[in-house]
Every structure is written in structure tokens, then in C-alpha cells.
């Protein structure tokens, strides 16, 4: 199979990640932060090592302000609910994933908050920032922005938005789902108060892992209550991060794998990874652009302005049908609406959807060449272009 669905989750995982998960069952099999025996202590140190690794990658020096979640969505919900439950106004972009839109929509429906959607302008960072600025109000609490659209790859001006938020006394939450591991993210330098990332995409860890990193721990509120291993005799949830946000047993095998994934990203360098992915994506985009019978919805995915994501359809097929045809030809890509209503309404693709090819660090140039050959042969074969669903 040719796997080009890395925006959903990266595959295959590096061998070091698979080994780390496997070894966790042998060497880190006890519950960290609960017991005091040597295996539990060794596991706790391993878990801490992952926090330190994440801190190194994202420029945060307090490992205790790094919370393990089960994915990026859970992390985003935790921040939005913590900040949003006290009311106020939020600004998001017109490219946000449902994991940002839906919690805000829920809070709005409960009558707690209001939010505005800022128009973004592909490649024109200043115009995009201006668009956010025009929506700022005296009660604006937080700007939320994705690092890059998961549908069209469009990158947003993260540092400029962080600066804008702080200049207006607002907080800045970055959804790093599509950029963590392939772009330098510096929480300190880019005025990022909250960073939410999946562990299983660009960080190359197992599914079921995610991270919430914050420079404003005092603003967090627990979303799940229960055992944390501390203050066990008190009914009140302890306020101390990270335990406050990590009730219940941690996903230690996942965390061990995630730590190995972050190690790989640190050793290769996120910008090197991102630029290599962009080269492959640009090659694929150029070849698709030359082919007849392809409708491209995303721009050439150059590193500065785009994540390595290509949205397209074959002929008159829908995104879902295009993905099905690719699947029948042993290519893994994602069709449909990608959990991103806002992005599809913006691009007028809300009826047809798109098929998304997303390049990852494990993809090779040979795979990209094979992908293009297969798509070219699908297009040449008129029979395949008949919708037989």
C-alpha cells in the first residue's frame, strides 16, 4: 500500500517508536505516580523524560506544564473549556478544525461565550492578521489558530497572531495538529500561551497520544476528575499541573512511543523534516497539475506557506469517491470533509468534499512517483472514471 494519509495519522511509525512501545511492556510496566516500588519509579522517570523531550521541542522549560492527553482534540477541548467557562469573546480562523469549532459552538449555545470567525488570506500573512485585528473587542479573551489547514495545507502566521493577541491583552492558543514535528514551534518566542498537538502525527508516536503545553497553568481547569496519585484523602481535585489534568492511569506504552518519536524529530530537525515533506508534496502537486482530469483545490504546497497537503478530485467524482478509487488501487488517502466544515464552506467544496493526499516523513520519492503513475493510469482508464458505487 502507498500511504498518503499522514494528516490523519503518520504511518508507518519509525522502528525506534515501535521498539519503545514494545519495550515499555517489559521495562516500564508499572503505574507511575501511584506506587513507590522500583518499577513504578522507573516508569515515572520515563514519563518525565517524555515531558522533557516535548519541552525541548517546543521551547517550554517547565515539564510540569506539559500534560498528556489522548489526542489533540482532547487538549484543545481542555483549553477552550477552561478559558471559555468564564465567558468572553473568542476569535478563530475560517480554517479551523471541528475540534476548535465545536467546543466553542457548544459554549456559545449554552450562552456562555461569543466567537467570531476571521477570514484568512492564503500566503498574505499581514492581511490575515489584519482580519483578526478587525474582530478584536474589549472582551476578547483568546485567539485560536491552526498552524495549517488540515484540508488545504494553508499555513497561518503563528508568531504574528501570538503578538497580536498579546498586544490586545488576549491569550493565544495554537492548534499544532498539522505542523508539530515539521515546523519550528517556539512557545516562548511566538507568544503561544497554549499549544495543543497530537502525538501520533508529525511527532510520530502511537495513536491515543497528545499533548497540552501551557505557559499559563494557573488558567487551566480540570475536565476529568479522579485519581491523580496526590492528595488522595481530599475530595477536591488537586490544582497542581500536570496531575490535575491527568486523572486516571496514563497511557505509558503510548508515552514511551511518543518520547521515541520526539527523539527522532529532535535528531532530524523539524524544519528539515518539513522541507523534505514539502519537496515531495510539491512534486506530487506539480505532476497532478500537469495531468488532465484532475481538479486541484489546494495551492502548490511550498514549505513557507503550506503544510504538505493536497486536496483534489478526479474528474467529476466527489472527494469520497476519489478516495475510494485510490483505495481500490492500493493508495491510502482521505476523502470527504476532514472534520473541517469551515474550510470546506470557505472553498465552496462543502457539497463535493475533496480527496486529501498528505505527505509524511516516512514517504519516499519512489512512493510519490508510483502514486503519480497510478493516478495517471486511473485517469487514462475511462472505465474507472465511471461511478460504479
Amino acid at each position, binding site marked *: 500500500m502507498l500511504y498518503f494519509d499522514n494528516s490523519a495519522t503518520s504511518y508507518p511509525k519509525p522502528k525506534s517508536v515501535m521498539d519503545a512501545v514494545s519495550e515499555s511492556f517489559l521495562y516500564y510496566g508499572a503505574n*507511575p*505516580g501511584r506506587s*513507590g516500588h522500583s518499577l513504578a519509579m522507573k516508569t*515515572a522517570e520515563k514519563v*518525565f523524560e517524555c515531558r522533557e523531550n516535548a519541552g525541548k521541542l517546543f521551547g517550554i522549560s517547565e*515539564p*510540569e506544564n506539559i500534560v498528556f492527553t489522548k489526542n489533540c482534540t482532547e487538549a484543545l477541548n481542555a483549553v477552550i473549556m477552561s478559558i471559555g467557562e468564564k465567558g468572553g469573546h473568542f476569535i478563530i480562523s475560517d480554517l479551523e478544525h471541528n475540534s476548535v469549532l465545536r467546543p466553542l459552538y457548544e459554549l456559545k449555545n449554552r450562552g456562555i461565550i461569543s466567537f467570531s470567525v476571521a477570514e484568512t488570506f492564503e500566503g498574505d500573512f499581514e492581511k490575515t492578521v489584519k482580519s483578526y485585528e478587525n474582530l478584536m473587542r474589549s472582551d476578547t479573551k483568546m485567539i485560536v489558530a491552526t498552524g495549517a489547514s488540515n484540508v488545504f495545507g494553508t499555513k497561518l502566521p503563528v508568531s504574528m497572531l501570538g503578538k497580536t493577541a498579546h498586544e490586545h491583552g488576549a491569550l493565544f492558543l495554537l492548534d499544532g495538529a498539522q505542523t508539530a514535528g515539521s515546523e519550528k514551534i517556539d512557545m516562548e518566542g511566538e507568544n503561544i500561551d497554549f499549544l495543543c498537538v497530537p502525538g501520533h502525527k508529525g511527532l510520530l508516536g502511537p495513536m491515543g497520544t497528545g499533548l497540552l503545553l501551557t505557559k499559563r497553568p494557573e488558567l487551566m481547569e480540570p475536565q476529568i476528575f479522579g485519581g491523580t496519585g*496526590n*492528595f488522595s484523602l481530599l475530595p477536591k481535585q*488537586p490544582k497542581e499541573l500536570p496531575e490535575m489534568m491527568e486523572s486516571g492511569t496514563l497511557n505509558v506504552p503510548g508515552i514511551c512511543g511518543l518520547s521515541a518519536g520526539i527523539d527522532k524529530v529532535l535528531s532530524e530537525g523539524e524544519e528539515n523534516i518539513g522541507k523534505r515533506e514539502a519537496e515531495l508534496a510539491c512534486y506530487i502537486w506539480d505532476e497532478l497539475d500537469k495531468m488532465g482530469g484532475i481538479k486541484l483545490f489546494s495551492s502548490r504546497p511550498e514549505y513557507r506557506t503550506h503544510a504538505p497537503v493536497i486536496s483534489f478530485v478526479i474528474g467529476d467524482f466527489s472527494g469520497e469517491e476519489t478516495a475510494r478509487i485510490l483505495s481500490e488501487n492500493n493508495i491510502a488517502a482521505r476523502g470527504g470533509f476532514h472534520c473541517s466544515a469551515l474550510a470546506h464552506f470557505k472553498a465552496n467544496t462543502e457539497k463535493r468534499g475533496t480527496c486529501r493526499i498528505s505527505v509524511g516523513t516516512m514517504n519516499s520519492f519512489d512512493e510519490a512517483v508510483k502514486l503519480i503513475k497510478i493516478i495517471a493510469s486511473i485517469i487514462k482508464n475511462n472505465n474507472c472514471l465511471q461511478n460504479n458505487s
Partner: protein
Amino acid sequence: MIKDYYFLLSSITSAVKGEKILEKNGYRAHVFKDSSINPYGCGYIIKARGNRENMEEILKNGGVRINEIREA
């Protein structure tokens, strides 16, 4: 005065963090759990040998919240 001290913390993360900071600064430190010594929730304790004031300052500068320090 050089002695063995117990640093009583309120979470495993603080305990491991503190242990690493002390070790980086040349102290011998290790974490263990004993709720009868540490009543502050988690029961985790850093045992370290050295000058109390110096170690306390190093831990505080590193952002480790200490609930209590006792002679071991």
C-alpha cells in the same frame, strides 16, 4: 551543614523534576515514597545529601514547589 535531608513534595512530577535538578548540580538524590513521612498528598520524597540552604535554593530556582524540608 552537610546532612541528609528529605524534601517533601506534592506530586511525582515535582519529585522527579527535583531529583534531576539536584543531580545536575552534583548532588546525590533519589526519590522514594512514604506517606508516613510525607503527608502532603503523593507521599513522594527526595532524599538528598548536602547543604540544606543550597539545595533548597537550587530546587526553588528550578521551579520545584517544596512543601517541607526535614533532616533525614
